[in-house]
C-alpha cells in the first residue's frame, strides 16, 4: 500500500469482503439487529471472523492476529461502513485492541489480545463521560488503590457497545489529580460487581451506546502505573488511530449512499423522463462524487500515514476525520433530497445511513473540533 494506491492483494481482499458482506448482510438484517438491545449478533460475528478474520487483521501475529496494518484495517472499516454492518468492530478491534496495543505490557497483550483477535471476546474502550468530551483530561472517574488492587468509582457514557462488551478498557485517574497527569488504563469484565450498564436511547440505532456506572468496581491495571503522562499519550494515539478508522468507515457509507441515490435517479421517472436526465440532478451528483472522492483520498492517505509513522499523522488524521464528517452528512442530506418524499420514510433505507452519518460526525469529535486539531498541529 502506498498513500495513493492499493496493492493487488488489498484490492482482492476488498473485493472478497464486499461480496461476502453484500451476500451475508442484506439491509433487512441491519434492520433486524438495530431493533435488538444488543445491536449485533454473536453467531454472525464469530462466522465473520472464522471466514475472513477481520478482528485479527491488524493485531500482530504474536498476539493471535494477522499482522497487517492500518491500510487493511481501513479497508475493513470502509466495507463495513458501506454495507452498514452491525458488528462490534469499532469497539473491539479498533478502540479496545489499539488501546491495549498502545499501553499494555507484553504480558497483558499476550493475555488480552488473542480472544479479541479471534472474535471470541468483545471489548470496548470507556473514556468519555457525561460531559461528552473526547479528551483524556476531562476524565473524572477515579481509581483508588485498595488492598493489592484498585477500585473504580464514577461513570462513563457514550460507550460504543458498552452494555454488551465482555471486557471494558477504562480510562481513570488517581484521586486528587487533574489534567493529563495521574491517568491510567484499567480493565474490567462486563459482569464485574458494582458495574451497572444501561443502553442509551441513541439516534443511530445501528451503533449502540451505553452509560456505565462504576460503584467501587474491582479493576485490573493495564500498562505501567508509574508513568505519569504515559496513559494520556497512549489514549491520544488510540483516538488518532480510531479517527482514521472511523473516517474510512464513513467514506464507505458515503460512497454507498451516493451510488444508491444515483441508481434511484436513473430509474425514477417524472415528467416523462428519468430524473437523472435533469441538469440539477447531474450537477448534484457530480458535486457528490467530487466530495466523496476527496474524502476517500484523505482517508486512504491517513491510513497509510499511520502505517508509515509520519510525523504529522495527528494533523492528517484530524484532516481525514473532518472531511469525512462533512462529506458523509452532506452526501446523506443530498441522498434523501434525491429520493424525495420516499427518502423521508422509515421503509426507505436511506435514513439508516443518514443516522450513521450523523452519529459518526459527532463520535470522536465533529468536523470543527478536528479542523482545530489539524491547524494546531500543522500550522500554529
Amino acid at each position, binding site marked *: 500500500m502506498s498513500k495513493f494506491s492499493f496493492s493487488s492483494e488489498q484490492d482482492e481482499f476488498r473485493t472478497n469482503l464486499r461480496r461476502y458482506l453484500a451476500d451475508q448482510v442484506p439491509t433487512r438484517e441491519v434492520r433486524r439487529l438495530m431493533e435488538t438491545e444488543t445491536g449485533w449478533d454473536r453467531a454472525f460475528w464469530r462466522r465473520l471472523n472464522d471466514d475472513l478474520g477481520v478482528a485479527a487483521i491488524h493485531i500482530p501475529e504474536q498476539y493471535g492476529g494477522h499482522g497487517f496494518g492500518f491500510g487493511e484495517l481501513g479497508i475493513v472499516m470502509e466495507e463495513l461502513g458501506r454495507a452498514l454492518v452491525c458488528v462490534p468492530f469499532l469497539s473491539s478491534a479498533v478502540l479496545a485492541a489499539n488501546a491495549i496495543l498502545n499501553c499494555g505490557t507484553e504480558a497483558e497483550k499476550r493475555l488480552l489480545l488473542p480472544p479479541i483477535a479471534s472474535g471470541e471476546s468483545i471489548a470496548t474502550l470507556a473514556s468519555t463521560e457525561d460531559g461528552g468530551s473526547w479528551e483524556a483530561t476531562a476524565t473524572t472517574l477515579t481509581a483508588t488503590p485498595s488492598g493489592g488492587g484498585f477500585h473504580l468509582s464514577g461513570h462513563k457514557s457514550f460507550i460504543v457497545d458498552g452494555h454488551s462488551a465482555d471486557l471494558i478498557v477504562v480510562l481513570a485517574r488517581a484521586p486528587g489529580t487533574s489534567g493529563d497527569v495521574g491517568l491510567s488504563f484499567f480493565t474490567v469484565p462486563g459482569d464485574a460487581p458494582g458495574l451497572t450498564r444501561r443502553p442509551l436511547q441513541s439516534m443511530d440505532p445501528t451503533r449502540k451506546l451505553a452509560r456505565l456506572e462504576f460503584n467501587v468496581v474491582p479493576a485490573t491495571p493495564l500498562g505501567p502505573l508509574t508513568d505519569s503522562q504515559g496513559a494520556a499519550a497512549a489514549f491520544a494515539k488510540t483516538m488518532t488511530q480510531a479517527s482514521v478508522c472511523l473516517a474510512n468507515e464513513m467514506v464507505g457509507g458515503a460512497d454507498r449512499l451516493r451510488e444508491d441515490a444515483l441508481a434511484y435517479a436513473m430509474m425514477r421517472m417524472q415528467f416523462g423522463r428519468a430524473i437523472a436526465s435533469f441538469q440539477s440532478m447531474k450537477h448534484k451528483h*457530480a458535486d457528490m*462524487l467530487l466530495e466523496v472522492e*476527496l474524502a476517500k483520498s484523505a482517508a486512504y*492517505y491517513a491510513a497509510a500515514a499511520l502505517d508509515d509513522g509520519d510525523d504529522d499523522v495527528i494533523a492528517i488524521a484530524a484532516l481525514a476525520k473532518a472531511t469525512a464528517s462533512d462529506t458523509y452528512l452532506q452526501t446523506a442530506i443530498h441522498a434523501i433530497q434525491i429520493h424525495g418524499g420516499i427518502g423521508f420514510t422509515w421503509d426507505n433505507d436511506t435514513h439508516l445511513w443518514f443516522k450513521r452519518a450523523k452519529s459518526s460526525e459527532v463520535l470522536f469529535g465533529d468536523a470543527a473540533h478536528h479542523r482545530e486539531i*489539524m491547524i494546531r498541529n500543522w500550522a500554529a
Partner: protein
Amino acid sequence: MSDVTEASVRAEVSTWLAANWNPALGLVEWRNKLAESGWGVPHWPKQWYGRDLPVGLVPVVEEEFKRLGAVGVAKVGIRVLAAATILAHGNDMHKEKFLRRILTGEDAWCQLFSEPGSGSDAAGAVTRADLRGNQWIVNGQKVWTSGAQKAHWGLLLARTDWDKPKHAGLSYFIIDMHQPGVKVQPLKQMNGHATFNQVFMTDANVPPELMLGREGEGWAVTTTTLMHERRGADALRSWAMGSDQMGRAYEEERKEISVDLAPYKWYPQRAGRVDLLLPRARETGSIDDPVIRQELAKLLIMSKSAEWTARRARAAQAEGKPQGPEGSLGKLASSHVARLAARIHTQMTGANALLTGADGVMDGLIAEILVSVPATSIAGGTDEIQRNIIAERVLKMPRELAVDTNKPFRDVPRNIVS
C-alpha cells in the same frame, strides 16, 4: 520495432549531445540541428524530425538534456498544439511547410476557436469561410485568443456550410495572421491584464491547400487540438524554466520565455495563491482568530485532498489500472480551492483588501488574487461544463437533450453579436 531500452536511449542521446551541444550556437541554428537529429521531439515520426521513440521513453531523453544543460525545441504556446494537429491531420506539404519552424521557434501560432457567441459551445461557431474563385474568404470574430499579436499562423475553425447540422458544417484552416483582413485587438480583463485578444477577420484570405482535413470535417480536427490542449494543461506550470547559464543559446531562450510568458504573470493569482495563506495568517496575526483557523483548515483540507486525489489518478494510470473517477475531478476541485482561498485572503486582509497597486498589500498582489480568481471556474471549461462531463462520462447519466444538432445550422437560434 527495434528493441530500444531505457539504457540504450540514454546512451545514444548523451553521446549525441556530448558531440553536438554547444551553448555558443544561435537558438535557431541549434534547434535546426535538433530537428535534423530527431532528439528534439524523439516521439515524433522519423521522417518528421523525430525518432519514433515510445512516449514512455521521452522523459529519459529530457533527463539527459537537463543533465547536460542542453536547450530543447520551442515548447511554449499554441505552437505545440499546432504541431500535434498537423501531425495528426496534415499532409506532407503542411508538415514540410510548418513543423520545422514550429520546433525552431521561428513561427508563433494562435488558436481561433472561441467566439463572442460560442464559448462553451465551440461547435456553434459562426465565423464563415466562403470559397470565392480559388480562395477561401473568411469573415467573423474570434475571442480569447492568446498570443494573437505575435502569431504568424492561426488555427481557424470556420463554418463552410450553413445547411448542414452544426458539427457537419465546420472546416479547419491554417490562416496567415499577417494580412490586411486580420485585425488583432487586446482584450482587457476585469483584473486589468490583457492576456488574450479579439481577432477580427474581414475578407481575410486562406488558400484552399491550407485546409486541414476535408471540408465539413473541421470538428474532428478541432477535437484533436482540444484534446492536446487538455493533456498539456499541466505543462503550463513548467514553462518558466529556462537556465540561468551563460551562452548565446541560453540567453536567446531566456528572452523567448520571458516574452512568451509575460502575459501570464497573473496566472498563479487566479488559482488563489494557497501558498501565501499560512504566511499571511502568521504575519497578520489572524492565525489566532478561531474563525480564520476554521476557514484555513477547510481550505487546507480541500487543497490537500484534491492533490491526493490527483496523485491517486496518476498512480492508477502508472499501474495500468482502469481509470477511476478521480482523474476527472481536478478542474472542479481547483475552482472550489481558488474561491475559498480568495475569501480567506479577504478575511485576513480586512480593510486593506480594498486597496490595489502600490497602496495594496504586497504591491497589490492580494488584490490581484481577488479579481483574478473568477477566471478559474470559467477558463478551460466552466464548472457547469465540468459537472456535465463528470455526470455524463463518469457517472453515465443521460446526456443533455440536444435541440441544435439535427437541423440545418441556419435554423438554430443563436446569439446576436454586435
